[in-house]
């Protein structure tokens, strides 16, 4: 599919809208994880509005592509994306993290339309995605499975167990994306517990590895297209991102991992995200 300038501009607008909704959600809830939600927004926008074979009107279609948000704390981004894509009314975003709401702190597949897997406890999503990718092959359905993990998250041992499985079962319908913002709760990922070099590690585990600017829509589209052509092994995209991307005072600041803005901060964020 040919991507036009117009398409790129449109996706950029969508990503901006998702970012505004993330800020709304976290501000309303006075709780949540804005940093990691903003870092992966462009990835979600490209997947849900350009790459994935999905249809909000056929949300249970067994042949649809699947998405697993393994870094479940970025729920605000996923909810905003799904609402923007038409899975549920935007109004619902106001209930984020509140009592009796659909939009739990971490994604709940049983209650939120469009969510393919519940998540929250880190390190489990790639295994789940493998299970989906194996099922796709068993039934010759041919759907693709995308799994987004945090960079700190891959410190979990299970991630590497799962990486072995992806490769062992030659899951070429699986695309792993690492949101490499290099920040985790206790600080810089390389200072807390280095995961580097990610590329070589994943290559040695049998992945075809791509590196990309994870906040650049154009590059993301190109890399997802390339990943689709890989046969006989799984793909991994190391997406270099900026934590808190789009809100100047949140960018690359570890404090914004799990903190809500006050009124003044909220106004400033919304102002920045409204600029052309």
């Amino acid at each position: 599919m040919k991507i036009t300038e117009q398409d790129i501009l449109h996706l950029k607008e969508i990503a901006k809208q998702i970012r505004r909704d993330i800020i709304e959600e976290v501000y309303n809830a006075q709780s949540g994880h804005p940093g990691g939600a903003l870092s992966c927004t462009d990835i979600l926008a490209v997947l849900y509005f350009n790459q994935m074979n999905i249809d909000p009107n056929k949300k249970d279609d067994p042949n649809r592509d699947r998405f697993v948000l393994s870094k479940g704390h970025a729920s605000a981004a996923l909810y905003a994306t799904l609402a923007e894509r038409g899975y549920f009314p935007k109004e619902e975003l106001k209930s984020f993290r509140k009592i009796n709401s659909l939009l739990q702190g971490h994604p709940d597949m049983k209650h939120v339309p469009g969510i393919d897997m519940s998540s929250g406890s880190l390190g489990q999503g790639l295994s789940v995605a493998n299970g989906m990718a194996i099922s796709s092959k068993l039934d010759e359905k041919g759907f693709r499975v995308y799994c987004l993990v945090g960079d700190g998250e891959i410190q979990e041992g299970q991630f590497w167990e799962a990486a072995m499985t992806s490769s062992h079962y030659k899951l070429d319908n699986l695309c792993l994306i690492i949101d490499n913002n290099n920040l985790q709760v206790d600080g810089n990922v390389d200072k807390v517990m280095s995961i580097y070099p990610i590329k070589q590690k994943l290559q040695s585990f049998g992945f075809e590895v791509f590196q990309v600017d994870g906040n650049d829509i154009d590059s993301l589209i190109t890399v997802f297209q390339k990943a689709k052509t890989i046969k006989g092994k799984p793909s991994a995209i190391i997406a270099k991102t900026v934590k808190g991307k789009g809100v100047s005072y949140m960018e690359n600041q570890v404090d914004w991992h799990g903190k809500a803005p006050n009124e003044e901060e909220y106004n400033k964020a919304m102002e920045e995200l409204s600029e052309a």
Partner: protein
Amino acid sequence: MKEEKKATRQSYGEALAQLGKNNENIVVLDADLANATKSQNFKKEFPERFFDIGIAEQDMIATAAGMATCGKIPFASTFAIFVTGRAYDQIRNSVCYPNLNVKLCGSHAGLTVGEDGATHQMLEDINITKAIPNLKVFCPSDDTQTKWLVEEMAKVQGPCYIRTARLASPIIYDENQKFEIGKAIQHGNGEDATIFSTGICVAEALKAQKQLEADGINVRVIDMFSLKPVDEEIILKCARETKRLISVEDHSIIGGLGSIIADVLSEKMPAKLTKLGVKDTFGESGKATELMNKYKIDAEAIVEELKK
């Protein structure tokens, strides 16, 4: 009870292979123990639907969860210690919270693992699994019941845990026996005592029942294979109808069958219950039968207790 013996892990494997014939959605996963859990029976028949995940229990459980989201009915087996111990978080968050249709099998449960000793003798799995919402917990006592359970688990929507044993034990039920999830099986109507039991200890309870009868002590044995949901009615009925209540299990007395019964009694009909089981200690190496004797969960221990 017949002379013929079979380990419930063996029955599990045979039942899986049968199940695979009738239902294409059945997939089986193991963590390098297919030879021991007996899931290899399925592997032989349906290699394309069998997935060895290697020695990676956490990955196995979450992979099964992913398969279940796509309409598969995964049966994932390994030793009870590893599935419920090592992969607890995966069972809780990736299987039970989303209420996925994953069937977990913990084989080699309890002291009766024998020679492998304490590290492999899982004595807390009933406690761990019964505490997780949405998860049904079963501990079958013989071949017939295990085969029925495996079939039934495939029909029931949602996560289940089945606890099987390494040691061969007598076949208790004939093929016509009717079972129902949440309904215990009563053996005899004796009123001197009720022996509640589960899994491998049911046969011991039945042996004890016979021995006690010879001494003029009439007891009934209740096979509590369905631990969650539990048959509350039969617990209360036995508390009303019999003079003594005891429970016997190849599991810790903390949080096992005894605790499940005590929970029901304390809320609805306070009564004294004697719990036979492993008393807040780890196991050790030895022959399964020696261990059952030493830790007082065999027929001899039951008879001794009821003669007090």
